[in-house]
């Protein structure tokens, strides 16, 4: 019969997350799966509660987009006892829990940072370059990973240096505010060669701050960020942004396929289904990508 799948979603903290939710719904509808989404409002407690109630409702499978990598052992054990397969979406959990889930459909956020760093290193070449970094929320694993990946990538190039790094909480408003103060602190922004932001939203804010300060983002100052949300393509099309690394909102599609195969034929999927971290630059016809992404619920 029809599959019923419970999806414990983190919340709706950004446009990307909203897109992930709506794409998941679309994908589920395409496959005629009954997807129950429980929104955890950014709280792990709520996610655990949601998983417990999915178990109580005896769903066919559970999707989990974990808000944090640790702390899932006991609740996932309960799911295992109840013989409900669990698929992780978007983020991985701590290695100790490997046998507790069927598969994880995620991107590698360290790798995302590396892609961004490599692009910057390649673009800058041998020239000395002072980078300012807009971090994600302090304590968020994605922020730490994207920082780590980027740092690793530029460590190979002694001409690249992160001179300032402050959190912009993954938001536009804070990205703008932090960038404003970076500009003040770096002599009106003249000494800044590139901006790296852990997500596109902060970068959109930072671009506004640079424009207001009379700087030319995309030209005088290079920008690279992660997520590939539509608005960054708009900026790219206007020549105000240079590069973004895609984090696809379609995690549910591969996950649904894996579950269907598992239920029908007992095919055990690989432990990790990695999504692509594709780099987009101004050379990729940003306007077209913008139009194609607009309708996805970002």
């Amino acid at each position, binding site marked *: 019969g029809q599959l019923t799948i419970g999806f414990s979603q983190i919340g709706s903290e950004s446009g990307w997350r909203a897109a992930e939710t709506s794409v998941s719904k679309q994908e589920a509808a395409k496959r005629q799966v009954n997807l129950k*989404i*429980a*929104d955890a409002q*950014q709280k792990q407690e709520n996610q655990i*509660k949601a998983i417990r109630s999915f178990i109580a409702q005896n769903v066919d499978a559970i999707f989990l987009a974990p808000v944090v990598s640790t*702390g899932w*052992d006991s609740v996932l054990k309960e799911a295992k006892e109840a013989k409900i397969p669990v698929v992780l979406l978007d983020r991985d959990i701590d290695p100790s829990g490997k046998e507790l889930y069927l598969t994880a459909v995620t991107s590698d956020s360290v790798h995302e940072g590396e892609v961004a760093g490599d692009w910057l290193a390649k673009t800058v070449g041998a020239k000395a370059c002072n980078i300012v970094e807009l971090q994600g*929320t302090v304590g968020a694993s994605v922020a730490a990973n994207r920082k780590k990946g980027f740092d690793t990538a530029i460590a190979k190039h002694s001409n690249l240096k992160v001179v300032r790094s402050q959190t912009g909480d993954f938001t536009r408003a804070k990205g703008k505010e932090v960038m404003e103060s970076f500009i003040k602190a770096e002599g009106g922004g003249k000494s800044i060669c590139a901006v790296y932001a852990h997500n596109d939203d902060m970068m959109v804010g930072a671009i506004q701050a640079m424009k207001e300060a009379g700087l030319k983002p995309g030209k005088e100052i290079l920008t690279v960020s992660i997520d590939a949300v539509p608005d960054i393509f708009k900026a790219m099309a206007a020549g105000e942004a240079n590069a973004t690394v895609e984090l696809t909102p379609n995690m549910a599609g591969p996950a649904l396929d894996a579950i269907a195969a598992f239920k029908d034929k007992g095919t055990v999927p690989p432990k990790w289904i990695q999504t692509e971290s594709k780099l987009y630059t101004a050379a990729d016809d940003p306007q077209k990508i913008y139009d194609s992404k607009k309708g996805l619920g970002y």
Partner: protein
Amino acid sequence: MKGLPPVLITAIVLVLGFALCAVQFPNIASTRVVGNLLTDNAFLGIVATGMTFVIISGGIDLSVGSVIGFTTVFVALAIERWGVPPLVAFVAILVLSAGFGAAMGAVIHVFDLPPFIVTLAGMFLARGASFLLSTESVPITAPIYSTVSDFALRLPGGGRLTAIAIIMLAIVIGGALLLTLTRFGANVYALGGNRVAANLMGVAVGRMTVRIYMLSSLLAGIAGIVFSFYTSAGYSLSAVGVELDTIAAVVIGGTLLTGGQGSVIGTFLGVLIQGLIQTYINFDGTLSSWWTKIATGVLLFAFIALQQALVALARRPVAKSAGAAS
């Protein structure tokens, strides 16, 4: 002071709400869901017990969520990185958090500052300190953790009464007894009734203030340990915003924010009401992020409005005979 009528009303609200939910989702009326309700809200029940004391005494403690977060990080690091035996780590963190609460109480009393702001600074401080310890989440693999999280009393019907639920129930009962049966409890009510009068009647207001905030932070520390059992990890961003959930639970439980009235049992019921709202929304499972928020708000309103209506009904004007006996 007896606190019975408001508690009774909250209980009626809870039972009514539970019945309504069960009509829509029959699965809710199972020991499994009830067991989950207790387990999932164990840490909330513990902090809310401490918060009840604070609020009855006329104060407020915004730092509890951060103290929980700090505790989880501290415990995880102590056990996993510094090699401290778990029980020692627990004792250390409880001493630390009690000291933290005592310090806030002392600042409030000695410098005559509003608790709201002092504990807000405490909230920043504890959260900031946990960032300094570690911004990553640290898994805890100590055997005691799996032992404790696997322990559960089986209830008829498939439900589980877990260790942390039992800890919470014990603390709620202990808190209720402390508040209603001891001199300390009476003094808590006295402080909330009127600080100046309590002082004139010989209550050591300063010492009481320090102790009350100490108790609250201590219970937040215990809640942090319970939270770390719940998630087997320490994470600096855990329990963000829990202070508001806690205050809401206390107030829904019939405690007046102005102090002087309330009960621990009421708070416990308030915690369950909050948990029930969450469970209901999870069972529904069709709500988007925003409808979840709106539904939470509407249900919160419905519960409080129902409660107010019942209170109004109960408060039929029955005049007390106050004359002198002849």
